[in-house]
């Protein structure tokens, strides 16, 4: 059965983030003041933090995952900040120990009396917002393919790599359809590479959408192209989604429109995850 390989320290899987850093990412999210590039950087740093925490034990971080980040805009290249700059693929334990910096931020938490209060939290940064140049999506997906080909040679029986591609969808080097197909044709013995697309749309008719099984409600061709290039969620991922109260149909794609993708990170089996752990 595909997508059933055990994820362990001797047989890890990998996440590769492919992130749009083009000039258009300077624009604000629809109905918000925040730049898309800032929102995406926050989302990636949160996802990386989430991955680290998932693998953390009292004695350190277990290398269940390797992680890479490719940025594309003025340049197409590995995009970690700090000491990890230029690294294509990094074991999660090194990610944990080498954030570029740790910022202090505030978050709203329950004050125990029915209200909310501010709490200071540490927020590690591995990835910074940059927005410059065109949107060479094909070139970026091509680099992703090269990086994953190397990884698959090293772990031919691993749980297949997961690519998380975040973009506002307007490629400047041609339609990305073929490049997405090429990427998802790479495979380990456990199945094909999984490509999940996060589309940040400024289209006023775009509605927040997570894991649809049809492109019918999507607002434009950019979104439909990304939907068509996205892999189907695995049965285990669908089961985790259902556990979390999401309605995800069979055939649902790893595609979200102006929505969060943290489910993908949580929906990988590295051992018992209590349902009362959030």
């Amino acid at each position, binding site marked *: 059965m595909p997508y059933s390989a*055990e994820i*362990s*320290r*001797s047989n890890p899987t990998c996440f590769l983030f492919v992130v749009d850093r083009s000039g258009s990412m300077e624009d604000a999210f629809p109905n918000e003041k925040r730049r898309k590039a800032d929102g995406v950087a926050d989302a990636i740093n949160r996802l990386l933090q989430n991955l*680290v*925490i*998932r693998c*953390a*034990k*009292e004695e*350190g*971080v277990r290398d269940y995952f390797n992680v890479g980040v490719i940025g594309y805009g003025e340049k197409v290249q590995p995009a970690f900040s700090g000491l990890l700059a230029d690294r294509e693929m990094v074991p999660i334990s090194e990610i*944990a*120990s080498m954030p570029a910096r*740790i910022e202090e931020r505030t978050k709203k938490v329950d004050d125990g009396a029915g209200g909310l209060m501010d709490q200071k939290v*540490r927020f*590690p940064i591995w990835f910074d917002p940059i927005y410059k140049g065109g949107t060479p999506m094909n070139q970026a997906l091509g680099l992703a393919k090269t990086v994953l080909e190397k990884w698959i040679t090293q772990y031919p029986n691993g749980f297949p790599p997961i690519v998380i591609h975040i973009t506002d969808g307007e490629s400047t080097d041609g339609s990305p359809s073929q490049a997405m197909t090429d990427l998802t044709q790479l495979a380990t013995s456990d199945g094909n590479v999984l490509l999940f697309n996060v589309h940040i749309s400024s289209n006023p008719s775009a509605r927040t959408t997570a894991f649809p099984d049809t492109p019918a409600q999507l607002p434009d061709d950019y979104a439909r192209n990304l939907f068509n290039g996205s892999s189907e969620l695995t049965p*285990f991922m669908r*089961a*985790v989604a259902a*556990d979390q109260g999401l309605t995800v149909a069979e055939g649902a794609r790893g595609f979200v429109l102006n929505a969060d993708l943290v489910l993908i990170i949580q929906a990988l*089996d*590295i*051992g*018992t*995850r*209590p*349902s*009362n*752990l959030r």
Partner: protein
Amino acid sequence: MRVTTDVFWAGKHGSQPHEYEDAYWPLHRLVEVTTDVFGCAIADGATESSYSRLWAKQLSRAAGLRLPPDEAALHELLRPLQKQWAGYVAQRIQKQAVPWYVEEKASSGAFAALLSLQLDNTNNWRAVAVGDCCLVHVRVNQVCQTFPIVSAADFTQRPYLLSSLPARNGLLNAHLRTAQGDWQAGDVFLLMTDALAHWSLAEAEAGAEPWQTLICLDPDDAAGFETWLAPLRSARAIRNDDVTLLRVRVA
């Protein structure tokens, strides 16, 4: 009432012995006692939480010594354990200046499944469980009861578990299971953590006799247990997870 227990355990293949996060009570590999009341327990610390081994040990010891028959008793049992756990972890974090992720992970608490069994000299037994550890009561090659999970299909990778953080145990009442029955001389109780329990139930559903296999394991041959387990893990008939079997014979 004369009770004999023995225990078989194996850490996840590929991990270090100190990473074994199941726990059992009594602690000794082989115990033989004559008593009016006998208690035992197993616990299974969750991979996705930290300091789970400590938590599983605390739970199995406390519930093995005194079975909590209902939700109120379980909360009462948990309170001092949660304080101990938090105190120990806070001390470790303070002493060792741990990295950000260890502290962050510990703040989510530890989680473990728990199964506790008590026998008494009126020929009654009762059991309490939260999570997916399983008990099978066998009498003359026949299964009298399986508890709390009765079918292999009912196992999930996201069970509700007991947390070291009181706030995470909010739905405990909905997830606490209890069972009771009577015992006869010669009965065997098999207490298993989830990977072995899943295999056993699947085998039984396929018409095999896993209980006999488990009852016949040689208690003096710990290495033999691992030898028996290895091909089942390779064939993925048993999930690669920590495995614990606590066997209780009563006479």
